[in-house]
């Protein structure tokens, strides 16, 4: 899967003009993906980007790899077929919040539980971009949109909680503005065998501008984000003076300030990305918002990356002939 000549990030960019709105959060995501592929030395000819429909799903057009822009909500299913037929391909799925969690929710569920070996990027702008700004299943309560002129009423889907409930084995979250976080997380996701699911908070400056301002802003996000690193205590804040403690009464994680109310560093939970229990609690944490690798617990994957062995087809033919002759036969001369 590695290219013969070392390729640079820009070598993974196709010749097509990128047609996202200037300033769209998708730009930084594609940049990070191209960097990840270059670092991994990916062979573009063995790399495939599959997408559904949406602004985000235009992604494959801008990649100098194989790409398939399919139909709304079905990228996960198409990608599964690709992996079944040719497991050695490096397959990425790129999808939006509507594509993944409105129309495509069922396929995402089954992709995750089957642990199909793909890297799944969910570009969550909490809105339908391409169809001009309707609320999506991830839109926060009260979101004003042409289809919810008085604000949405429903509880939004939290993609991370959903992925946990679907038995995802690699679950991470990023923010579009943080290149370091993006490329670090993408590299981990890419290396993972099985479905690696990454939610990316992505600003849609036309229809939902600023919903993630607190997470994107370099100044504010020291307070609003919890950057997880395996084996390290869950600290955040400008001077890392805040942290996350387990509250045994609520069975939930909660933010605390070290030094206040007798809280010490010992009270702070150390991140263990292999802990399912911790992952569940992290999925429910909103402030600060966990980013980075929330959960990574490899497990056997049956739609994986092992090429179909040589000779399979001949064996198949022989066995087919065998099956066709099975049972009672008679010869007419």
């Amino acid at each position, binding site marked *: 899967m590695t290219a013969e000549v070392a390729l640079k990030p820009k070598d993974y960019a*196709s010749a*097509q003009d990128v047609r996202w709105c200037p300033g769209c959060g998708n730009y930084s995501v594609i940049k990070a993906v191209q960097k990840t592929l270059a670092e991994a030395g990916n062979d*573009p*000819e*063995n*790399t*495939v980007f*599959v997408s559904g*429909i949406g602004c985000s799903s235009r992604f*494959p*057009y801008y*990649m*100098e*790899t*194989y*790409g*398939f*822009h*399919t*139909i709304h909500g*079905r990228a996960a*299913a*198409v*990608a*599964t*077929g*690709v*992996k*079944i*037929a*040719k497991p*050695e*391909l490096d397959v990425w799925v790129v999808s939006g919040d509507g594509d993944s969690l409105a129309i495509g929710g*069922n*396929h995402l*569920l*089954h992709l995750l539980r089957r642990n199909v070996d793909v890297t799944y990027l969910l570009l969550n702008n909490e809105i339908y971009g391409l169809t001009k700004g309707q609320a999506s299943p991830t839109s926060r309560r009260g979101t004003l949109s042409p289809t919810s002129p008085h604000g949405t009423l429903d509880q939004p889907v939290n993609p991370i909680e959903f992925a946990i409930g679907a038995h995802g084995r690699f679950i991470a979250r990023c923010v579009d503005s943080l290149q370091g976080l993006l490329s670090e997380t993408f590299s981990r996701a890419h290396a993972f065998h099985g479905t690696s699911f990454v939610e990316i908070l992505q600003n849609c400056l036309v229809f939902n501008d600023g919903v993630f301002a607190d997470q994107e802003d370099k100044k504010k996000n020291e307070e609003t984000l919890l950057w997880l690193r395996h084996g390290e205590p869950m600290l955040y804040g400008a001077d890392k003076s805040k942290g996350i403690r387990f509250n045994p009464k609520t069975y939930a994680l909660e933010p605390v300030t070290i030094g206040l109310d007798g809280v010490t560093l010992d009270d702070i939970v150390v991140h263990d990305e292999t802990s399912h229990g911790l992952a569940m609690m992290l999925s429910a944490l909103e402030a600060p918002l966990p980013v980075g690798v929330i959960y990574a617990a490899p497990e056997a994957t049956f739609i994986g990356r092992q090429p*179909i*062995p040589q000779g*399979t*087809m001949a*064996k*198949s*033919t*022989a*066995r*087919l*002939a*065998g*099956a*066709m*002759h*099975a*049972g*009672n*036969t*008679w*010869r*007419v*001369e």
Partner: protein
Amino acid sequence: MNFQTSAGTAPDEGRRLRREAVVIRFAGDSGDGIQSAGNQFGIEAALAGNDLSTYPDYPSEIRAPAGTTYGVSSFQIQIASQEIHTPGDKLDCLVAFNPAALKVHLVDLKPGGVLIVDAGAFKAAGLKKAGYDHDPLSEDHADELADYRLLNVDISTLTRETVAAIPDIDVSSKKDALKARNMWVLGLVLWLYGRDKHATLEWIDKKFGTKPLVRAVNFAAVEAGYAFGATALLPSGLEPVTIEPAKAAPGLYRTATGAETTAYGLAAGALKQGLLPVYCSYPITPATTMLHTLARLGEEAGIRTFQAEDEIAAICAAIGASYAGGLGMTGTSGPGMALKSEGFGLAVAAELPLVIVNVQRGGPSTGLPTKVEQSDLLQAVAGRHGDAPMPVIAMRAPSEGFDIAVEAARIAVKYMTPVIVLSDGYIANAAEPWKIPSLTDLPDRRLQRGDAHGIQPFARDPQTLARPWIVPGMAGGVHRLGGLERQDGSGEVSYDPKNHERMTELRMKKIDGIAEDIPLQEVDLGAETGDIAVLGWGSTYGAITDAVEKLVAEGLSVSHIHLRYIHPFPRNLPELLKGFKKVIVPELNTGQLTMLLRAKTLLPIEAVTKVAGRPFQIGEVETAIRAALSEMSS
């Protein structure tokens, strides 16, 4: 086990009446083992060299309450010494395992037909459940069954006694003895119609090898039923019968259902083109058995089967598989076809090969899920948004599933297009003798895949108009594909109006052009021109053939034309039809092919419709033809 028997000999040939064909139906509760008794009878008949045709029919409940009329399961079989094409209209023999079975099926027994009933099952409760207010077997009602040659035996008791007589038999087996009634009956019927029991005993041996007592019980039951026939004093008129072997083309045969032959054909069609068969499906009656057959086949040999989470995922995974260079295939029935139709559009747009088998059942909606119908034809031809042409071909009989599936795979790959294959619930479930094709004899169409440098993904073959199949992993082939309109040649997204017009036309011409690559339509039976052409498609084949055969024999000017290729039509079809004064189309729907033909030919073609969840009877077709003939002369 893969043993062969040469066309066999019937027991005590000598004193038997010879018959050209007999139609037998077994009927009883879903739990009575009707289907396996029928199946085994078919195998013995096949091994004896008879032609045969079966029609299993069962309720959509898994185990409907015992003794109810709606819970009756049946298996009809015709065996013959000449070529036959249907399981037969009226019955020569009915086996009724209980009152409900008698109630439901007696109407189909010919006057003078053999009626075998299990007297032991005709108790008050059963009679009541079946809706009888009296016992039709009782002396008081003797006239009720007087038209038939009744064999009124307490099969329950006889089976129980047989089982009890087995040495070392334990109590629980005794309790289960009644379950072997079907084998007792099978033994008797095999004897009655002069068929061997050898393969049946082997089958029992294999099936219950690990359960010696069950094996013994079933063995004993078959033997006892057989012996009963040979030794009991049968009522007069109940002479044993024999049916000579039928003539058939030389070759190695087995019996197979349409589901099996189609599944094998799908696998072969891909493999012979050097392609990995990837069958992605979601269970649905009556299509599921193809998935079962391929799953059994596949897991060991690397043929891929994928039970998807729904039909949409199934078609999409199949598309993904073809995109990646395997041959994506899927099978389903009407409701699944509806769900897949968005996916078909993508495959048409992306010009990827796919094979889709629709095993039609009664609609609309859930309809009659275990029954046969041909009412998804227009959906296949036109049920997509946009101008999205797809080839549609149909199989006419269980034994044709293999060839049609191979042909679909050929067209799909050669023309880079999804292809719909129409089968139906009758074909999928029914069994026929099948001449096993040799995989080595099948033309090898192995694709060469190499370097894609300099090849545009939508540059077309000037002959077929197919685009090249550039798949991920190929050097120099990196490109993007999608459902937005593509630029002719480069395949890049294009909103250019002229390009859209050109691409729409190319897609249409490509499919229309397949007409040049398929055989001209032939007349199956009768003259090339004449008074009436009876045009059929799909599983109506058998009934039409037999009806037309009869009328031709009478010297009437009737011909049978049977379509395999529905879209595009064979190019000589309009001309051919113009050679007849009248064209009628028997179909199991409200006239769907008829509509297509009228639009194509502008001839006043008329449909003969039946939408009852059942195949045509030969007599129904015959009547329709006679009516058409007399209309013409009047």
